[in-house]
């Protein structure tokens, strides 16, 4: 087991734990954090996979992840979140 692959597994575990937390909420703002998570952790996993699997073209996918984090984040914040979801009580 190479170090890069072990770290990729560790980061995936991190991502999943964080995603479960983000999906719980409680406010819509907490859910939007998923965009940030994938931008950083997702592209880090892809970078490590590119090294571990010897596939440099995965770097392009990581680039798209980082770019999309910005686009979905802006779409989230500017377009979708006009009011509180009915079942979301702000703390």
């Amino acid at each position, binding site marked *: *087991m*190479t170090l890069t*692959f*072990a770290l*990729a*597994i560790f980061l*995936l*575990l991190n*991502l*999943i734990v964080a*995603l479960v937390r983000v*999906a719980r909420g409680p406010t*819509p703002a907490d*859910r*939007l954090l*998923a*965009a940030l998570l*994938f931008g950083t952790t*997702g592209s880090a*996993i*892809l970078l490590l*996979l590119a090294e571990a*699997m010897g*596939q440099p*073209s*995965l770097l*392009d*996918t990581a680039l*798209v*992840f980082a770019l*999309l984090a910005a*686009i*979905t984040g802006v*779409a*989230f914040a500017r*377009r*979708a*979140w*006009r*009011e509180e*979801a*009915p*079942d*979301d009580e702000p703390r």
Partner: protein
Amino acid sequence: MSATLAFDLLLIVALVWSAARALTVADLFRGVVLLIVFGLLMALAWARLGAPDIALAEAAIGAGLTGALLLDAVGHLRAKREPGA
């Protein structure tokens, strides 16, 4: 258990979890967020399967573009509902 198998199993669990949640959740906004999460995890799965080009397309179209459009649609639906509510 080999390292690759561990990674793939984790990914599968996360994929099934996000897909099931996206389908069963009542609130539209949460559903769309979970769909985007599913799309990005799917891109990771394509990367693991050795198909970086499909991973690219999945992340850009499946998660990014579709997600942004659906989020916009949710926003419009809410804006429409607001005056009547």
